[in-house]
Every structure is written in structure tokens, then in C-alpha cells.
């Protein structure tokens, strides 16, 4: 009696390219049905939350910056806001504006890198931005100059763009003179035009027809597009303060990953540019609003492949906002608000380029960190990436393994995952069992 034996088909990609950090993907297909999707992060753990214990609070911005070279400002911002909550400090006026400005620089730099060098090659059919430059030199050059304009903001305010040095609890170690900021204006005006071109260029790409049903989570503030403040909101009615984060979001560990998976009431959700834009588009400045409207796309954007478009719109917003902040800048009387240490626990959430970044610290009376907890955006998006892959895979199953792998990588790159951040990411390994 011949019992039909399930056939196994295995597809393997060992390192997912054009993402920050290292990881793999394992997909099991049995009798043509997708069984398991495991995004495996094998980036080695670095134990930041553990070695922050026993350090002085003023060392925290320098230490947490090292979690991620692509978004150090985000780590510094979430940290200083959480610590300021403990010490009862409010950072307002020009110092608050400068924090928004350095964050704008990081969004521009990080988003331009992803749009031009990491994700656009997928749409135009190249292995890399560098390879794309052979046929599209003007476009790649524009992208690199755009990226550089973001770096210029970070370098002026922070001393350098990777691991800036001036951010501290209470403000900055040094604030710029008015004319130093004015020196940025010409380049930022060029970059604003280039950002308009970027949105138009990206809006013309061919997008796969893919509309999964997702929950979007982002900060929302009454006055402006969010960076450092606001309530954590979703399109499904969530509205909480950062202090309530751990009552709604839970991290769980899976055996195949060094990154923890975070869920919202047991379900996956999206953070980052797509979520922010869907929940905050009414707060865009006039030019970004107009260019988005001209693109003819209806909001909310539910197709994860539109992440590149949301990112491009945010580059434009960040440039408009930078110019607005520079225009009204008057140097503050002191570079930082004085700190009086007191013991306590503080939580803060800010909008890293890839989405909300939560920090909690407990500090003793000497200003020493006794406990630290950090939830990065990529560990929040992981569940949603796996879910999207599960939904996107069925249409790929007739393709040869190599093409399936490439298509999966494209889905993953929509999220601009930062594996270095999450480890606390990719190799693709698809096993197929049965007829595919």
C-alpha cells in the first residue's frame, strides 16, 4: 500500500542583505501550505540592559547610543526623557526645538539611506545602491547628498553623526549660535527640493498588490508630527501614556532569535513611518501634505511596500520642520537645565526612524542606574513581518526557490529592520514539505 509521503522542499538564504545587522529567515512549506515563518535574529546579544546597571545617569546617553549606529539619537532621546521624568525636569523652548532638530537630522539620514541605498534597488532591479549608480548616477548622487544634509544637522548639533556627543540630561553640552544654524539653510533648501523629487520618484514605482489588515501604533501629539512627546495611539482605539506601555505591550522570547518579540495585547502590530503617517498625516507641514496629496494615494496606506513612500514623505517633512525650527531659533540662556538627582522610576517613548522606542530606568539617590528596560522598534515589528510573510508567501510558491527567497527579503526590507537594535536579525531557510 503506497501511502503518499509528504514532499519536502527547502529553500535557504543565509544572510538577508541590505538590512542593518545579521539574521535569517526560515519558512516551512508542507503540501503547498506555509506552516512556520521564523525570522531568526542571530546578531549576538550585547546585554545593554544588564551593564547599564551600576552606571551613573549622566553616562547613559553615551552608552545607549552604542546600541545602534544608525539611530543613536533615538536611543539618547528616549533615555534623557525617561531620566528627566525621574528628576522632574521639563525641557522647553529652544532646547526642545534643538532636540526636534537633531531628531530631524537622524530621520533624514536614516530614511535617505534606506530609500536610496537599501530599498530602491529592489524596485529598480539592482543588488545595491552602488550598482544602481552605474545606470542612475544622478539619482544615487541625489540620495547621498540628501543623506548628507541630515548628517550635517547631526554633526552641527552633536559633534558627529554616528554617536553624537552633546546630548545630555537637561539639554545639551553645547548649543549652536544662530549663525551656525543659518549656515545650514542653503543646503537644507536644496534638500527640501530633492525630497519633493524623491516622493515623486518613489510614487512612480510598481507596487505589489498586497493589503494585509494591520494595527498601526505611533505617538500622537496635539501640536505637531511626533518626535519626543505624545500619547501612544493605534488605529484600533489604543490611547495610553508611555508610563502605561508595559501594561499593554508584552515581550516574549522565541527559541530561534536573540531578539525579543513584542506584542500588543497578544497581537502583532506595525510601528515606524507607515504607522506614523497613517496616524499623524494631519500634522504634516504644507509642502509634505501637498506632495502626498499629489501622489494620489489614499490614506491610510495599508500596503507595507508603501513604507518607502511614507519614509520619503517623512524626509520632506523633516526638512520643512528643520527649516522652520532654524528660522525661529534664539539661543537659550543655558545649554542645559540644571539637574537635581532624586531616586525614582521613569519611562519614555520617542519616535526612532523605525518606530516607537521605549525606555524605563530606575535610579537611586546617588544617580546610579539600578534597572533598565529598552524595547526597540524592530522587536515590535518582528511579529508583523512574520505575519506579512505568511500572507505574502502563497502567491510565491510556484516560483523557484531563489525567487521566493528574493521576494521574502523584499517584504522584510519594507520594514527597514534594524537587527543591531533588535538584539537585544537574517538568513533565509525555507523548508518545503510536500508538493509545492
Amino acid at each position, binding site marked *: 500500500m503506497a501511502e503518499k509521503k509528504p514532499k519536502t522542499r527547502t529553500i535557504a538564504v543565509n544572510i538577508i542583505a541590505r538590512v542593518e*545587522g545579521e539574521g535569517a529567515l526560515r519558512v516551512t512549506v508542507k503540501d503547498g501550505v506555509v506552516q512556520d515563518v521564523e525570522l531568526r535574529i542571530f546578531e549576538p546579544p550585547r546585554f545593554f540592559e544588564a551593564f547599564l546597571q551600576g552606571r551613573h545617569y549622566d553616562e547613559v546617553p553615551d552608552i545607549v547610543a552604542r546600541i545602534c549606529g544608525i539611530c543613536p539619537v533615538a536611543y539618547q532621546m528616549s533615555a534623557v526623557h525617561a531620566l528627566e521624568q525621574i528628576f522632574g525636569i521639563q525641557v522647553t523652548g529652544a532646547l526642545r526645538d534643538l532636540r526636534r532638530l537633531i531628531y530631524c537630522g537622524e530621520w533624514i539620514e536614516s530614511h535617505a539611506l534606506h530609500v536610496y541605498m537599501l530599498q530602491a534597488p529592489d524596485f529598480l532591479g539592482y543588488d545595491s545602491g552602488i550598482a544602481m549608480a552605474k545606470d542612475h548616477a544622478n539619482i544615487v548622487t541625489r540620495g547621498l547628498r540628501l543623506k548628507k544634509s541630515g548628517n550635517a544637522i547631526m554633526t552641527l548639533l552633536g559633534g558627529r553623526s554616528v554617536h553624537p556627543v552633546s546630548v545630555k540630561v537637561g539639554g545639551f553640552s553645547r548649543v549652536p549660535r544662530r549663525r551656525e544654524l543659518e549656515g545650514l539653510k542653503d543646503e537644507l533648501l536644496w534638500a527640501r527640493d530633492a525630497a519633493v523629487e524623491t516622493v515623486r520618484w518613489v510614487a512612480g514605482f510598481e507596487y505589489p498588490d498586497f493589503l494585509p489588515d494591520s494595527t498601526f501604533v505611533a505617538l500622537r501629539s496635539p501640536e505637531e508630527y511626533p518626535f519626543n512627546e505624545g500619547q501612544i495611539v493605534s488605529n484600533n482605539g489604543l490611547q495610553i501614556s508611555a508610563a502605561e506601555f508595559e501594561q499593554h505591550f508584552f515581550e516574549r522570547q522565541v527559541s530561534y532569535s536573540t531578539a525579543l518579540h513584542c506584542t500588543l495585547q497578544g497581537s502583532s502590530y506595525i510601528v515606524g513611518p507607515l504607522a506614523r503617517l497613517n496616524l499623524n498625516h494631519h500634522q504634516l507641514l504644507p509642502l509634505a501634505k501637498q506632495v502626498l496629496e499629489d501622489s494620489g494615494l489614499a490614506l491610510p496606506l495599508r500596503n507595507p511596500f508603501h513604507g518607502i513612500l511614507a519614509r520619503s514623505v517623512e524626509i520632506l517633512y523633516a526638512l520643512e520642520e528643520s527649516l522652520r525650527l532654524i528660522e525661529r531659533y534664539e539661543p537659550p540662556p543655558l545649554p542645559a537645565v540644571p539637574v537635581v538627582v532624586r531616586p525614582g522610576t521613569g519611562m519614555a517613548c520617542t519616535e526612532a526612524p523605525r518606530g516607537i522606542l521605549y525606555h524605563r530606568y530606575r535610579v537611586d539617590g546617588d544617580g546610579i542606574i539600578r534597572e533598565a528596560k529598552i524595547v526597540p522598534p524592530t522587536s515590535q515589528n518582528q511579529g508583523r513581518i512574520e505575519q506579512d510573510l505568511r500572507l505574502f508567501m502563497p502567491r510565491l510558491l510556484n516560483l523557484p526557490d531563489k525567487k521566493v527567497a528574493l521576494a521574502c527579503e523584499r517584504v522584510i526590507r519594507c520594514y527597514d529592520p534594524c537587527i543591531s537594535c533588535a538584539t537585544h536579525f537574517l538568513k533565509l531557510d525555507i523548508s518545503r514539505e510536500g508538493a509545492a
Partner: protein
Amino acid sequence: MGDRPVQHRGTTKKAARPTLGVFKFASCDGCQLSILNLEDDLLALGQVLDIAYFPEASSEMRAGPYDIALIEGSITTPEDAHRILSVREQAKVLITIGACATAGGIQALRNWADVEAFKQVVYPSPQYIQSLSTSTPISEHVRVDFELWGCPIDKAQLLSVLTDLLAGMQPKLPTHPVCVDCKRRGIVCVMVAKGIPCLGPVTRTGCGAICPSMGRDCYGCFGPAEGTVQGPGLPPNTSSLAKEFHHGLQLIPVEVLRRFRGINGSVKPFRDESLIWEHEKRET
């Protein structure tokens, strides 16, 4: 060090372009980003070098051998301790980029702690985590031809080293302390003027004295300077600086310890100094 510089003649068209591989171990990606941050020079670099392996930037990943291998990150897992051996076998010239690859990095703070306890702080199920008890520089595992310090590296230093290699020259970078850069740039000394405990007198040049220029202390991103007192190739006078922190600026021993046990806390001169103050801490 560097006994086999890359032979590049640049006369024949295709075959002569040396191949470059960029490899990542435990790190934050910041030094690889510094390569992408070359911006104006990045496309030019793509023309003189054949970028054969750089997963963060390209889906095209070719097998070795490579003429130049740039290594980011430190060794923290059994798999990585094995992988670096294979990278070394495939590389003619191997260069470490940044504090992690050169000195173990910030994650080397685990070297003073119980990693099992660390796992329990961060992970609910620590048994899934494969991790060595130490974070070690690449040079503890394989021969390294040149080391680039910095957290992150300075992109001008990276270009200088690559240019030297392409010209068939032995790369050379200055090793004097940050202090000298401050004097040259006319930056007011933060330690003298504001009483801030600055590591500039013992830290290697490379950043351009960014921190003092931003009104704060140097915190040692580029590792120990060489030859400040004892002579070329010899360690900086950390003990004199530490005593000034303690007696002059009134830092208590644990504060002196934390100054030296930071980004490059595992590299010998800084490690030895921090151990002295750990002892002091226990005595007081």
C-alpha cells in the same frame, strides 16, 4: 602588521581592481555606516575597489579570497570565534574597524560581570542564548594587519588607510593624545577651566577633539594614546591622570574606575587603571 600590502598597479582594466569584503561581528553597525557616510567618496570607492562582500549594502555576496577585509565588531559567541578564522584565511589584508573589533567594545563590560546573570536580566529564557562570557577583540583570535580605532571610526582615517593600501604603502596613523589636538585647535581645556574629568590626555587622536569642542569631557572613544610620556609605542600615563581625578577633582574611587571602564574599558592601559581603582574602592 601589514607585512603584505595590497599589490595594486591600476594599469589593466578589470582584473586589477582589488576586492573588498566587509564583515560584521557583535557591533552597532556604526562603523559600517561610516563607510556609507563617505557619501561623496563612496561611489569613487566603488570604482577603485571591487566590493565583493558587504551584506549591509549589497545583495551580491561573492566568496573570497578578498584583497582587503574590513572587520566590524567583537567576538562574543562560539560561532563567531570560528567564523573569524575563516575570514582570516580568505583575507590578504585584514583591518579591524572600530572599538569593538579593535578592543572588544562597550559590550566588553561583560568581562567584569557574570554573563549568566546578564542573560537573566535581559532574557526570560536564558537557556536559548549562546554567548561567550567575554567580548574580545579580533586580535585575540587571528593576526590583524592594521587596526582602526574609534567609536565610531573616523571616515577620513578609513580613507587614508585604504588609499595607502591601494598605493602599496604601509598605512600609518598618528597616535598622540586628544589633548594635543585641543591645544592646536585653541579649544579651552574643559578640565582646567571647568573641572570636568577629561580622558583627552590619555586618549588617542582621531576624532578631532570633538567632545571638548562641544564643552564636555573626552570619554575615550579612540582608545589609549601612545608614547605620551614613556616613548613611542608605550602606554599613556593613566595613573597620573587618575590621581588628578581623585585628588584634584575630588572623584571618589568608583567614579575614577567608571571613567576608565567605558567604550574601550578592556584595552590594557585602561583596564589596568580601572583595576587599581577597583582595589581602592574596596579599601575605602
